[in-house]
């Protein structure tokens, strides 16, 4: 073990106090210490977006950050998106209904990126959705199902809000 430091952070609403190696990336920390393996690593150099998490509500690449940088902050990962164990988030539902995933490896980053985006832009155009996920690579879907899912989710979220 190299040099370590104690950090305290909230992940998906739960507080963790952990001793962490200073050189551990945030992604490795999340996957190995709390065991939240839903955050995936596709490139470890900041291009594929699979590792995207929400840091204080904003999307961030957990492969490009060190765990010690998030001391005292709030993180949401794919495991924390659904409102409860047996209910999915409308975005997750829309992904399933629109075939927005095949292998599912890019999915965590797509969901976190889109949650932030749909918060900022509840009524996007197709092109805006495409731009929003331009930093997330998917090799399976050709993006069409993902874009459809995002537009569908936007509508569901708007309706839920209006209701």
């Amino acid at each position: 073990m190299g040099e370590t430091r104690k950090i305290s952070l909230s992940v998906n609403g739960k507080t963790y106090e952990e001793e962490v190696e200073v050189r551990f990336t945030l992604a490795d920390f999340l996957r190995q210490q709390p065991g939240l393996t839903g955050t995936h690593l596709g490139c470890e150099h900041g291009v594929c977006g699979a590792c995207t998490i929400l840091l204080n509500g904003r999307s961030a690449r957990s492969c490009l950050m060190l765990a010690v940088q998030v001391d005292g902050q709030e993180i949401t990962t794919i495991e924390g998106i659904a409102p409860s164990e047996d209910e999915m988030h409308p975005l997750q539902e829309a992904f399933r209904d629109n075939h927005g995933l095949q292998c599912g490896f890019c999915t965590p980053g797509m969901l976190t990126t889109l949650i932030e985006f749909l918060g900022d832009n509840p009524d996007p155009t197709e092109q805006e959705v495409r731009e929003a996920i331009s930093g997330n690579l998917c090799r399976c879907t050709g993006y069409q199902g993902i874009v459809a899912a995002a537009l569908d989710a936007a509508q569901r979220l708007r309706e839920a809000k209006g209701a």
Partner: protein
Amino acid sequence: MSGWKVFGSRAKRLEDPALLTGQGRFVDDIILPEMLHAAFVRSPHGHAKISRIDVEQAQTMDGVQAVYTLNDFRPHLTNEHLVVGLPSPAYKQELDRPALANDEVVYVGKPVAIVVADTRYIAEDAAAMVMVDYDILPAVADCRAALEDGAPLAHSTSPHNILAQFDMGYGEVDSVFANAPHVYSESMWQHRGGSQSIECRGAVSFYDPIEDLVTLYSATQAAHTAKNILIDMLGLDENQIRVIIPDVGGGFGPKLVFYQEDVAVVLAAKLLGRPVKWAEDRREHFISTTQERDQFWDVEIAVDNDGKILGLRGSMIHDHGAYTARGINLAFNSALIVSLPYDVPCYYMDVVLAVTNKVPVTPVRGAGHPQGIFVMERLLDRAARELGIDRPEIRRRNLIPTEQLPYTKGLKTRGDAPVILDSGDYLACMEDALERIDFTGFLERQKKALQEGRYIGVGVANYVKGTGRGPFETVTVRIGPSGKIMVYSGAAAMGQSTQTMLTQIVAEHLGGDMENVEVVIGDSSVVPMGIGGSASRQTVTAGSSALLAAREVQDKALKVAAHMLEASEEDLEIDGNEIRVKGVPDLKVGLGKVAHAVAGTPGYALPGGIEPGMEATKNFMVDDLTFVNGTAAVEVEVDPETGKVSFLKYVIVHDCGTVVNPMIVEGQVIGGTAHGIGNTLFEWMGYDETAQPITTNFAEYLLVSAPEMPHIQMGHMESPTPLNPLGVKGVGECGVVPAPAAIISAVENALSPFGVFFDHVPLRPPEIVEKIQSAKALAG
């Protein structure tokens, strides 16, 4: 298909809930107690002799558990090579990969030693401290140069750089060409790329001394292949090794291959008595995971004055990379597919596979087909241009009409079966695509655009592709006392919805409740044999076996239930997890009870004199390929200043026979199309002249992202194949196949005012600009 409960429907995928909530289990998600982490020392040279490996410093680092080289592994290996080549008489030499490098490295990225440590971080630090002395040898990076006299040898121990050589063809080619009114020659090439699944490769292995069992979790497309190679290399018997495929984050071909890293991880775990994990990183994926597509063609087509094809002939050089990690199948597929959708009276292709100092070449989604189709379609475009015939029109005159199907080509598959185009309507498919892209209105659009200073173009390409490669895929369907329907198979999933597909087929015959079916695949312990996911084969092979097994279990269940309910079988139906008498809702028995009745009670006879167990195992056997077909039609705009190609419209009409789930089929075709667009316009796997890879991250090697990707408009045709009971054909690779040919044709058409032509993929913006500029300069 009407009247079905779930078969043929856009059923939601069973795979999704876990994947959407972060509960998937990919190989890197497996965390075992006491687990160690591996990193590999890899060759930094394209070609070198190893004079010394010094592991001492690395071995003594804090947290390092072991460093192994081939010498350390040798006493534990019954075969130190990975023997995987598909058989063929065409081989001129055998080049199997050693488990780790012996005394020569022949490509950058080749594993030389494995370091195992407490964390991945330490393992990587230590790998950097393994000192290897290399004597650099001349490398051969280009497959054409490899065949020249005096070329450096890719392996210093080889007699030459020819891996294999073969030819194929039929008809009186020489006399036809000698007498043809028009002969057009072209040289073309296609460049290599990778699968670049977003999940890289990975392996976790552990040894259980109590069971004397080695377990390997591997992100592979073929569990049984991995198992068989490990049996061969480690001298194990069948009960001592189990290979499990966890969730796989995309395969696209290269994960079909068994790799050196797999065997090294297994041996390290066995020797250390602790679980060992290796998770490939992206750079490793770029240099050590197999790639595909370098081919150089010299071809000519003979046509008459009306554009009727008289013959096609030529030669092709295929880059095989440094080792045989699969076979000669790619070059074979390419040469075989060229002429297939068309009536080509005579054909000849001479093929050489050249060894180079690059990572081995094995199938990447499309497996040789995009190249062969590119060659045919580009030749047709050339002939059309020369003869002043419309591009669709020359195709109309040559496509094999549906009335002539089944149509026997004068060619044989690699298994020596005749090539028979089984079903489809190629012409109708093309007409549909042309209509969707409004080909007739295009000239008007183009004229108008030109007046605005915009360069738009349209392209069209037809394809067929052999799918559903046999010989079989086992499926067992079993109802247990719980009433759950279990499905076991040697099939493998890597994102193509295999569980959902098998569930739809089985549930259809056993109650129609998809939730009541559980599919267990990708585990060498559940069925004795398996082939796995490749060649767009699993719906054909595993799907058909599943159908036959489900029907047999259905018959058996009805028979037993009839006995139990004292009713006649014809009056019974399975609904959900119950069998009931039609029209008498109360007269019913649960599937679990029915299964229990044939599970056996000591001393009591089974009801109805039936065989024990509510199960059936089927191996649907198939030798002939079933050919899917389709047409891509593309409209693009090209910016002559920047060379940027943008899509205005992308249409693909395809026919994969009976559709089990249209949503999944669309997903496969669109995903494949994205891959094809990448291969055509973005993906460039560069090597310098010393065979050093120069594009080893996602900033240098570009994948298509969402903004570049057009909305794909799809059309389905359904011509069920007579070759299997479902009437299905494969679909996984179809989108890739026509993309290069259609897109390049469109780009060329857009730039027709400049009179520039293109003979290769990928075609990147600087090349387009350069071509235009030199054409302009020439025009003065």
